[in-house]
């Protein structure tokens, strides 16, 4: 049974609420009735502007009570919330003003809800964007507040920004129906009971933190604990304690990086006295699943009762609201070692070995892929060839998702080179195969690569390589994508060897870092396949790369940047 996103406002449960970690290390509980009043208060402020129906309202706030009340307050007022990165999660103020200005301009926000700390930088960004939006600061209060009117509902319930294949932000238009369906799918899949708490440290301007960890528990009135990403980094033990002490949290979600970080930072001795045996689910997604990192996390916590079946790999994307596939609750994650040398786009994947995650055969995980679990009904997943024709199960192709959670396209009908909407389906630009019941994602179809949560775009890297002195203009292609060991890039340059190669190597190491494999191939003119207009045929080159059918005359630079 689905629940409306605002239904919780009608009869907020006083016995439960959201807790927020304070900087002194204590948790501040905010029961649902007070939060509901806060939502009405923000909606009232917006309606006083006045706010037109369907107007976009940007939210520039860290994870806090005001974020929660603003998000649902915008919805209650008939607007469309667009959560944007807050200034606490950026590296430099100068770069942030530009970034925020670009997002505010792209969203055409009529108003921005923020706090006193961020207000000056929001105003700078609005000035830079030549945008006239009302700036609203509404500190949280649980004092009773009720709207006397019921504003008409907006068409879209979320404008979710993601970075596309060119790295420029695109807004995904997510409907009420999309969100109500996806939050119901997540709750049912997890079998999330009303009194079971969850904990999240994820940023709330991304789909996983927002839809999975905030909207799902709030819509269904579950108890939930929030900490900000920077609090998690500073004090990861506070996060773990919520799963191992009285009234333990039993749900969480995060990228590999978070679980790897816990395994690295937490001293096992500090876990004495904690009991993780109630921990039911740790959803892992958002980047390529790393069997070794998940193994280290499991080994750290298992002596303290953590059930290894709690690790629940999942797959999703903002274009499909959030969640598409996940391991069944309590089953545990599966891994396979494909025969990489026989891998061919469109062909059947040969499996050399398979094992449950945590099995000692997986070892340091080289060559192993972790399953993303099964499609969650009613979402459907198919795998298609380069012409869009569905492939039989077991074949490697492009992952296509279909169902009621497919969003209503990009803002302003924008297009993206890699991910594309086709009616009620989305071609994801991810390469994958359905092996058994499970989806396995092999990597991106050649346009970008994600290393340590950071996305590198082929075109950007190409531009930087080409800008180096000595590299012939227009004779270089960067192909990010699948490799056996790790995420990585392959660069093909139509040129004779020269002293400039050292500069290419240095640049790529600087850009990608030690986590990615880097290969340089030199060939004659014509080694790079092009369209009739001269554009490199990246996806075809990518397919040939994984099939091992690139031209024989390429000479490979064996200098692989990955530290082994």
């Amino acid at each position: 049974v689905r629940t409306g996103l605002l239904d919780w406002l009608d009869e907020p449960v006083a016995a439960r609420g959201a807790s927020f970690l304070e900087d002194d290390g204590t948790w501040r509980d905010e029961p649902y009735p007070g939060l509901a009043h806060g939502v009405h208060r923000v909606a009232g402020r917006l309606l006083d502007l006045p706010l037109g129906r369907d107007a976009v309202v940007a939210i520039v706030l860290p994870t806090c009570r005001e974020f929660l009340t603003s998000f649902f307050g915008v919805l209650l007022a008939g607007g469309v919330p667009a959560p944007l990165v807050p200034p606490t999660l950026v590296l430099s103020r100068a770069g942030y003003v530009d970034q925020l200005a670009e997002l505010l301009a792209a969203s055409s926000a009529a108003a921005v809800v923020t706090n006193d700390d961020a207000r000056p930088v929001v105003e700078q960004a609005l000035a830079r964007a030549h945008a006239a939006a009302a700036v609203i600061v509404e500190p949280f209060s649980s004092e009773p507040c009720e709207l006397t009117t019921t504003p008409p509902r907006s068409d879209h319930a979320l404008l979710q920004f993601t970075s596309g294949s060119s790295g420029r932000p695109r807004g995904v238009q997510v409907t009420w129906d999309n969100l109500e369906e996806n939050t119901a799918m997540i709750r049912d899949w997890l079998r999330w009971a009303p009194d079971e708490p969850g904990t999240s440290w994820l940023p709330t301007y991304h789909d996983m933190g927002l839809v999975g960890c905030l909207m799902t528990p709030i819509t269904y009135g579950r108890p939930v604990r929030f900490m900000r990403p920077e609090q998690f980094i500073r004090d990861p033990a506070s996060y773990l304690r919520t799963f191992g002490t009285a009234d333990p949290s039993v749900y969480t979600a995060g990228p590999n990086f978070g679980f790897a970080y816990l395994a690295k930072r937490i001293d096992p001795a500090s876990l004495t006295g904690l009991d993780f045996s109630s921990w039911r689910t740790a959803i892992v997604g958002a980047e390529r699943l790393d069997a070794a990192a998940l193994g280290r996390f499991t080994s750290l916590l298992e002596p303290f009762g953590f059930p290894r079946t709690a690790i629940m790999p999942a797959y999703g994307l903002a274009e499909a609201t959030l969640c598409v596939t996940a391991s069944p609750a309590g089953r545990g994650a599966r891994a396979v070692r494909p025969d990489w040398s026989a891998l061919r786009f469109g062909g059947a994947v040969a499996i050399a070995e398979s094992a449950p995650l945590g099995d000692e055969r997986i070892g340091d995980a080289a060559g192993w892929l972790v399953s993303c679990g099964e499609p969650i009904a009613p979402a459907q997943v198919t795998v298609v060839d380069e012409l869009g024709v569905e492939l039989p199960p077991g074949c490697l192709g492009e992952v296509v998702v279909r169902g009621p959670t497919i969003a209503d396209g990009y803002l302003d009908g924008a297009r993206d080179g890699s991910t594309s909407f086709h009616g009620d389906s989305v071609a994801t630009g991810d390469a994958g195969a359905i092996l058994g019941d499970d989806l396995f994602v092999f990597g991106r179809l050649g346009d970008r690569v994600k290393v340590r949560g950071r996305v590198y775009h082929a075109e950007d890297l190409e531009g930087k390589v080409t800008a180096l002195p000595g590299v012939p203009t227009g004779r270089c292609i960067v192909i990010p994508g699948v490799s056996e060991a790790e995420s990585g890039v392959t660069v093909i340059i139509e040129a004779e060897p020269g002293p400039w190669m050292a500069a290419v190597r240095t640049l790529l190491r600087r850009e990608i870092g030690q986590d990615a494999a880097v290969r340089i191939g030199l060939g004659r003119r014509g080694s790079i396949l092009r369209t009739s207009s001269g554009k490199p045929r990246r996806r075809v080159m990518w397919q040939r790369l994984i099939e091992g059918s690139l031209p024989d005359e390429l000479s490979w630079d064996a200098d692989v940047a990955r530290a082994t």
Partner: protein
Amino acid sequence: MNEADIRGRVRELAIEMAPLEAAVVVGSGSTRLADDLQYDSLALIELAVVLEREFQLGPIAEEQAMEVETVGQIEDLVLRALRQEQAT
């Protein structure tokens, strides 16, 4: 520790903690955290925590960290914080 020692140790940690492989970087005061060392906001907070422990400093405010773009500026930040601790 004199100023040069402190700068040297901060630089060492900033490079050691960098998301980018340290061995390929010859760090200097003008080494940029984001462009040269691949720092993102979470990695920078991780570095701040390590510096606070190493030099027994109070929490480095996020607003201060946001103004930092180079290794030299991190060194300045730590030196300023140490002087403030001594003064109080």
